[in-house]
Every structure is written in C-alpha cells, then in structure tokens.
C-alpha cells in the first residue's frame, strides 16, 4: 500500500503526544495563544491524516494495512507492531473527529495542562486502536487511564476525587486480569503478536480462563452490567471535554472484537448465552435507571451504557447482521453520547448546575441548542435517518433471527430509550423559561455551534447512507466472523 511518507500510524500516535508535551512545557500565561493554536492545528491535522488513510484504505481485504513493525523487546518477542483493518479504521476516524471537536469547541482549552492531557489521551487512543502486539496494546490501553484520571481528578466537579479514584481502581482492577490473560497467551504461543493469537489452538480450559481474564477487563471498560459502577460517577464529575473523549473511545468494546472473540471462539460459543443475558439486563436495567436520574450527565451516561448493552448483545449473537449492527451502534453511540455530553456541557457552562430541574424551556433563550438537542435526542432513540437507527435495526434483526424472545427484549430499547430521552427533552428544552437565569442565557457560541453541527451532519449522513461505512468494514467483519466460526480446540 502506497502512502505519503509522513502519514503513518506512528505519526497519528506520536504527533498529538508530542504536541501535548509541548503544550504542557509551554504552559504559563505568556504562551497561552501559542499552545492553543498548536492544539488546534494538530487536532485538525489529525482529521486530515485520518481522512487520507480512509481514502487510501483498501476495503477489499481483511488484512491489516499501513502496517509498521519494529522489534521492541526482542528477548520476549515484543514488537512495536501497528496496523489497521476495516474495524479499527472507523475508531481512529472517530477519535480524530472527536478530539478535533473537543479541542476547538470547548472552553476548558484555556487551561493548558488540561489541553495537554487531552492531546496525550488522543495519541494513546490511536495507539490502542492500532496496536497489533499484545504488550503494546496493553501499554496504550493502560496509559490512556492516566491523563483521563488526571483530567477528572484535577479539573472535575465537586466530587472529582472520589470519581477519579473509582475510575482508576475499577479499570486497573479489571486490566490486571487482562494482563494475566496476555501472559497466559504468551506462555502458550511464545509470541505477543495478536495476529498469531488469532490462529492459536487452545484447549477449552485455557479458553475459558482467557475468556474470564479478558472479560473482566473489557466488561469494566465497556462497561457491562454489573461492572459499570465507575461510569456514572466518572461521567457526572469529569470535565466535559475529557468525558466526551472517554465516552466516545469505545476501546473496551473494540477489544472484544480484536482479542476476545477471535482468540477464544469456543469459549465464546459456550458462554454467549450468559453474555446475552448480561447485555439484555444492561439494556433494560440501565434504561429504567436512566428514567430515575435527576442529574443531566448521569442520565446521558446511563443512556450511553444502555446502548452499549445493545452493542455487546450484537457481538454475542454471533451472526453477521447483529455484528455489523453492533459496530454501527458503537460509532453512533460514540457520536450521540459525545453530542449529548457537549449539550450538557454547554448548559453547565452557562448556569453551573447539572440538575435537570434547574433547566426548563431553554428553547426560549437558546433556539440553536434546542434544535440540536432535539436532533441528538432523536438520534439517541434511533430515529430512522440518523446513525443510531442503522445499528439498532441490525441488532434487532439479528436478535430476532437468533431467538424471538431475545428480539422482543432487545426491541424494548425502542420504547424505554424514547421514554427517558423525550422526558429529558420535555424537562430541559420545552416549556416556558424556568427562571430568569435561563431566560438570559446566550445561545451557542460559534465554536460550540460548529462542533455540534458537524456531529449532527455526520450522524445524519451516516443515517441516510450508511453503505460507505459498511463497504470499508465488510471484509474485516467477514474475517472476524470466520475466526469466530472456526474452532480453536
């Protein structure tokens, strides 16, 4: 594959990290505008770089593309190996877009240390999505925790310390199991290459153990019920930008596709019913819990993890339609959650409260935000024509194909999500202005509007014509399904 010499996956990873370090080094009032400028340029550059990669991506093959391989720790066979396939391609794209929008449209960017944390997170996220070596993946996966942890703990809301601690402990706890699994795989295969692991024969006991190891880490990260306890606190306390990035980085769910499903398919087949049950619990339980929320961001957080239930359901139904649906839903949920967190952030910036009851009738003062909010609400409840619909439709199709009863339970998301989302819209957007503070709120600033309009357009285009996205991921999904179907015993 011919690519421009300077656009490589390493460039994607290290450019934002270096920029982040520079921004941090330049902190201090004198250099404010330089570092802001640098961050804007770098994040915009990343969007173009990823767009370039998408244009040069060959959708006809499931092979990893734009590969880089350098020995890193030769004595253990650990390599600095990078590459993207049709699945990870979209998550890099998502990362580029979201980073760009967070950096250009959020106000917190005036704080340079925070800005640096976001840039570093972004770079590490590229790393996690492109790593083809188990250790490299683990390093990126874990390192991402640190800047996010700092962002929450330093720049978060009033309960930020508890939230940051909880976030860190939960994710670290889960990751340790994954580390054991990675070592286990090394012991059996003598290699840390993820591609080798995909074809590695494993006995059933080993597969079950590995499944549990991966599952613990990924279920925390995704998050899946009941290992989600960190998520609501983190999402309600963290600063908007970091939260948008965290919620739109679907690394946990992605790792199911990269590691768990293709490496231990026999265990997957055996344990799938339990995973389906957990996913259905997530869909319904989180939906009802969202209904009870009084905090704007907690509600969005529960809505997001309820939709992640649909995603994991799509994974473990183990059929092609549901799998594609799950992928669409991951992308769409990342966009929708980001957009709704942005909207919540725009409101919190103005009044300072996160409680739903402190807002009412914002349409009177903020017609732009109100319009976009309603649009994102519609995308969140999977209205046809928005990206949310594509995924939910396919997952429900897959679920009904698997079993009508599961289809019926999964389809309740149509009603439950509509209930909590529309009720939120009714309480926040419509009605007479709740108080004088709301009546005097200024509408979205140009930078805020820019970010939200771009998100809305992406969701609309993906909803009206999802085929181009599917074309590039098709071969890789087919390959993944082939791996799952093949026994590794």
């Amino acid at each position: 594959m011919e690519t421009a010499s300077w656009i490589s996956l390493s460039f994607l990873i290290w450019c934002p990290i270096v920029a982040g370090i520079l921004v941090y080094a330049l902190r201090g009032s004198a250099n404010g505008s330089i570092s802001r400028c640098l961050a804007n340029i770098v994040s915009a550059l990343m969007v173009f770089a990823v767009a370039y990669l998408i244009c040069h991506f060959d959708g006809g093959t499931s092979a990893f593309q734009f590969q880089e391989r350098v020995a890193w720790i030769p004595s253990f066979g650990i390599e600095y190996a990078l590459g993207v396939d049709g699945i990870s391609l979209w998550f890099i794209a998502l990362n580029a877009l979201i980073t760009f929008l967070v950096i250009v449209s959020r106000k917190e960017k005036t704080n340079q240390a925070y800005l640096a944390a976001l840039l570093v997170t972004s770079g590490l996220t590229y790393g996690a999505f492109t790593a083809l070596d188990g250790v490299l993946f683990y390093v990126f996966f874990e390192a991402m925790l640190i800047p996010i942890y700092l962002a929450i703990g330093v720049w978060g809301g009033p309960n930020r310390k508890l939230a940051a601690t909880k976030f860190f402990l939960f994710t670290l706890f889960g990751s340790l199991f994954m580390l054991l699994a990675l070592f286990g795989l090394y012991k059996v295969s003598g290699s840390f290459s993820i591609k080798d692991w995909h074809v590695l024969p494993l006995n059933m006991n080993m597969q079950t153990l590995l499944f549990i190891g991966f599952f613990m880490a990924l279920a925390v990260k995704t998050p899946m019920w009941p290992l989600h306890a960190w998520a609501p606190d983190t999402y309600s306390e963290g600063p908007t930008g970091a939260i948008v990035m965290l919620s739109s980085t679907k690394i946990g769910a992605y790792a199911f596709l990269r590691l768990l499903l293709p490496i231990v398919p026999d265990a997957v087949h055996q344990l799938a019913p339990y995973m389906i049950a957990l996913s259905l619990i997530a869909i319904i339980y989180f939906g009802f819990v969202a209904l009870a929320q009084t905090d704007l961001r907690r509600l969005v957080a529960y809505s997001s993890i309820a939709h992640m239930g649909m995603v994991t359901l799509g994974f473990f139904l183990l059929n092609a339609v549901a799998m594609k649906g799950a992928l669409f839903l991951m992308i769409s949920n990342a966009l929708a959650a980001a957009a709704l967190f942005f909207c919540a952030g725009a409101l919190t910036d103005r009044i300072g409260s996160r409680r739903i009851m402190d807002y009412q009738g914002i349409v009177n003062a903020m017609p732009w935000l109100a319009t976009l909010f309603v649009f994102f609400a519609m995308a969140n409840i999977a209205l046809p024509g928005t990206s949310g619909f594509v995924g939910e439709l396919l997952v429900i199709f897959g679920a009904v194909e698997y079993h009508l009863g599961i289809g019926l339970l999964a389809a309740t998301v149509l009603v439950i999500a509509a209930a909590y989302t529309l009720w939120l819209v009714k309480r926040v957007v419509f009605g007479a202005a709740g108080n004088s503070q709301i009546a005097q709120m200024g509408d979205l600033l140009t930078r805020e509007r820019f970010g939200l309009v771009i998100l809305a357009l992406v969701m609309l285009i993906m909803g009206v014509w999802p085929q181009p996205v599917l074309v590039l991921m098709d071969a890789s999904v087919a390959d993944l399904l082939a791996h799952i179907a093949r026994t590794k015993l």
Partner: protein
Amino acid sequence: MKTLVLLIILLPLAASVIAGFWGRRLPRAASHWLCCSAVGTAMALSFYVLLQVNHGVRLDEAVYTWLDLGFAKLTIGFLIDPLSALMMAVVTFVSFLVHVYTIGYMRDDPGYARFFAYISFFTFAMLMLVSANNFLQMFFGWEGVGLASYLLIGFWYTRDSANKAGMKAFLMNRVGDFGFMIGIALLFATLQTTDFSEIFTRIEELRGLTVSPLPGYEWPLITAICIALFVGAMGKSAQVPLHVWLPDSMEGPTPISALIHAATMVTAGIFMVARMSPVFEWSDTALSFMIMIGATTAILMAILGLVQNDIKRVIAYSTLSQLGYMTVALGLSVYSVALFHLMTHAFFKALLFLAAGSVIIALHHQQDLRKMGGLRKIMPVTYITALIGAWALAGLPPFAGFFSKEPIIEAAKYATLPGHTYAYIALTLGVFLTACYTFRMIFLAFHGKPRFDAPHGDDHHDVHAHHAPKESPWVVTVPLILLAIPSMLAGIVFVRPMLFGDFFGDALYVAAEHGAMAALAGHWHGIGAYLTHSLASPALWLALAGIAVAWFLTLRCPKAGVALERMVSPISGLFANNFYFDAFYEKVIARGARSLGDCLARFIEGAGIDGLLFRLPTQAIRFGSSVLRTLQTGYLYHYALAMVLGLLLLITGWGMH
C-alpha cells in the same frame, strides 16, 4: 416516472429545509409561498402520476442501496401502483389545502416559518411512507411522520399540556413501532428481504412455520408477523388500547389536527395493512383480531364522542371511531372499501377540522361548544361546508361517507370470520352514535342562540371577545369549499371504479375463501339501486334517528339533555375519564416505570452494585489495614513477645511431629 416521483417527494423536503433554517431571516410571505408552491407542484405531479397509473403505468425500482448486507440489500426505492398513487394524491391534496389554510390560521403566530417547515417535512415523510417499495423506507417515513407529529403537537412549546401530549403521542407510537419492528425483523429473519414484491411472491414459504417467543410456546409464524405488524398499525392509526394519544394531540394547532391527526398520518396504519394484504390474507387469526379491535374502537370512541364539549375533541373521537371502521374493513378483507373510506374520510374529516378551526379563530381560540352557538348566520360558508362534512361523516346518502361506510357494514354481515357479527352490531350502532355526536356538534356550534358573549371563567382571551366573530378570510374558506366538493361527490364518482371496478388491480390481494368482497360485488347493481336499497338498511334510519335525537337534546329540549345526563351519572365517570385508559397509562404504566427506575437506582444501583463492588471492598481494605496497622506498634517488646511465641509454636509442632 422515477424522476417525477423523486420530485414529488423531494420538493416538500427542500421547501421544509429552506423554511426551517432560513425562514426567520426571510419575509413571512416567502415561507408560505415557498412551501405552498412546493406542495402545490407535488400535488399536480401526483395527480399526473395517478392518471398515468390508471393507464397501467407501474414503477417498482430502487433509488439507492442504503445498506448491502451481502445476502440482502436494504434499499430506498419506490413502488408506484394504484394504491400508492392514490395515497400520494390524497396526501398532497389535503396537505396543499392545509398549507393554504395555514396562511390564514397562523397569520399572527411568531412561529410562522417553523410551522411551514414542519408541515412540509411531514408531507415529505408521509410521501416516503406511502411510496415505499420496502419496509425500510416505509419505517423511515413511518417514524418521520411520528417526529413531525411530535413536533407539531408540541408546536406551542411553552404550554406544558402540549409538550406532554407530544411526548405521549410519540411514546404510544413507539409501543406500536416496537411491534412493527418485530414484524419486519421476523420477515427479514425468514425471507432475508424487506422488499414488498419479494415478500409477496415468497410469502407461501412461511406457511406451516412456527416461531417461539418462549420455550414451550409455538406460534404460527405468519400470524405472529401479522399481529406484530398490526400492533404498529394500532399505534399509528390509534386503535384501542393504543389510542389515547390522539385526543390529546388536539393540543396542536388545528391545521395539524386536520392534516396529520385526521386525514393522513393516522391512516398510515390502514394503508400499511392494505399494502400488506398478500401477507395478512394468510392469517385468519390476525384478521379476526383486527375485526375485534376495530369494532371495539369504533363503538367505544363513538360513545366518547357524544360527551365531549371541546369541538376538536368531538372530531378527534370521531376520527378514532372511523379508523375503527377502516380497521374492521381490513379485517374483513375488503381492503378496497377500507381505502375508499380512508379517502372519503380524509376529505370530510379534514373539512370538519378546518371548519372547526375557522370557528375557533372567529371566536378567538374558543373551543368549548357550550360557548358557541348561532354562528350559522355569521359564518355562512363555514356553516354550509361544515354541514356537508357532517352529512358525509354521518354516512347519509348521497354524500361520500355513505358510499364508503355502508359497504363496510354490509361486508361485516356477509363475512364469515369469527367476530364479524360483533363487528356488524358495533358498526351499526356506531352509525347512530356518529350521526348523533356529529349533529350535536353542528347544532351546538351553529344553531341556537349565541352563547359566546357570556363571560368565560378562566379565559384570558376576553380582550378579544369584544370583536364580534366574522367569517374567515378566503385563504380559510377556499380550502373549505375545495374539500366540500369531494366530500359530496367522491362517493358517487369513485364508488364504481374503486370498489367494483379494477382500479386497484393487483395492488390488493384477497384470498378466495374471504368472500365478503365478492358478496358485496354480487349485491351491487349500480348507484341508483344502491341508493334505493339503502332505504331498507337499518344504517340509514339509525343515522336519521341519531340526528333527530341530537336535535331534540340540544335544540328542541335541552332540559331533556340535562335530565339524560343525570340519568347516566352513575356511570358518567366512565365517560368523563375516557374509560380510564388514560388513568391506567398514567398511574400504572408511567408511574410504575418511574417507581421501578427509582427503586433500581436506589437499591440495586446504589446499595447493591456500588455498595458491593466499591464501598464494601474499600471498607474491607480500610478495616483490614487498620487491623494490620495495630500489629505494627513499633514497640520492641511486642515484637520480642511475638518472636518467642512463634518459636514456641514451631518447637511444639516439631516435637509432635
């Protein structure tokens, strides 16, 4: 042809987008000129398409591939046949008139451009729905009209009741969509397609297959599909028990009630079932189910129509009841009659709503029938057109409603499926009730002494009450007249080709064993014979009796009405509370869901998961560390003691070994 259809669909969308985003910066007239001309052109083109289709032109073609799943393609595409061409013509015709009417009705509203943007968007979505050649696009339009309805019911967004009504409408429709989605998914899971033509040709493959929602239960697959799809129709077409949103939707501006909640959107469910006739014909269970639901809706909602005092709610309950008639017709497999009634109903019901709107603006947003009266002389055009609409709705010859309603009742007589007798009785009684509530409304609004000068308690529009009501401007009355014409004539003109001719051709399918349509055709001996024959049918006399009763109770002897009310007072709560459907949804379902959410959030989420997985381990670690900390006292003699004790223990153990 394809370009033509694309144009018909995209013109309203383009107008909507422009009016929506730039309407506030454009002069007000620009919004309405833009939207009216777009929809007007769409109407003209739709009529042309209808003519073409009548000459045998057909279109079944994909426009683009939405998603290619390998083994199946989900596409956006059109199926233009008599059924969809008819619907497109009706939709654009009513929509165009409502657009024009809106110029007058919403003249002073600050959300003028926004309103036009919404109704043009609605027209777009509705056209997508009816022109679809596959379920995907139909669902797209289906939810699109739902969104338009939600936005328009809550158009006056500062009113809490309007927002609530919009939300209720959306959620009830979502319950229906849940069923619709399951139906589509079942079809897709077995046939791997969403294209109508392929489903129709391969539907026989599903015979004998079963599906199991729970281990131990086996349902015939086709019946499960049909009932699931029909649940979708129940939501959209407001059938009991998913009907409660429609009366509340009257919170929206009146043009919307005419366009969306009477003439077009609510008939989408009827249209969908008719479109799916080749599927529904395979399941007698589903057909029977439809007869029962439709008949129940028809009779219960007609009863409620009698006791409403809000002029729009009377018409809304009448719409519910008439949708029940259409549903029964679908269940009886007389699809063409259902569609014929759908069409005539669109004309006379839109007419009645717009006439009601004309009255409402004349009286400065007064909707209470008890505060109207005597408008006959002040608003002659509105009165005459409303009377025509009422005459048609009551099903009296020779207006349109007669020709479409009478065959439904007769079909109920001839049919053989379980439930047809119940339907026959319910629909026949319904005729009496329909005439009664319709003319009660006419008499209260237009006849008798004016009551609108009486001080209205909580009404803040008193300022306006000094202006005497007057006839509405031409933008309002011309649409009334244009709707009155088909309300009178559509029956006589179209009954032959649509019911007994071959207008629909192969667009509708009726299985040979469902003989109601054949029986109807057997009894058809021309319009003249049909009219004279109707003199012998109970329906006509019941309708006349209904009018007489309404006249007696409202004009001749209002005291008798009061006495009657007192007589039924023991059960009046049942009527006043709409048979407690609303209370059930609000108190049991909505409150139940919220309480469940609260309980889960507090006990499972808070105490259970957070407690067990986070607080308990952290407390345990804290406790453990405090215990261990006490061991590290730092005193030498404590450590010395421990060493000695340990040594003793070791030695003892060794000795015993």
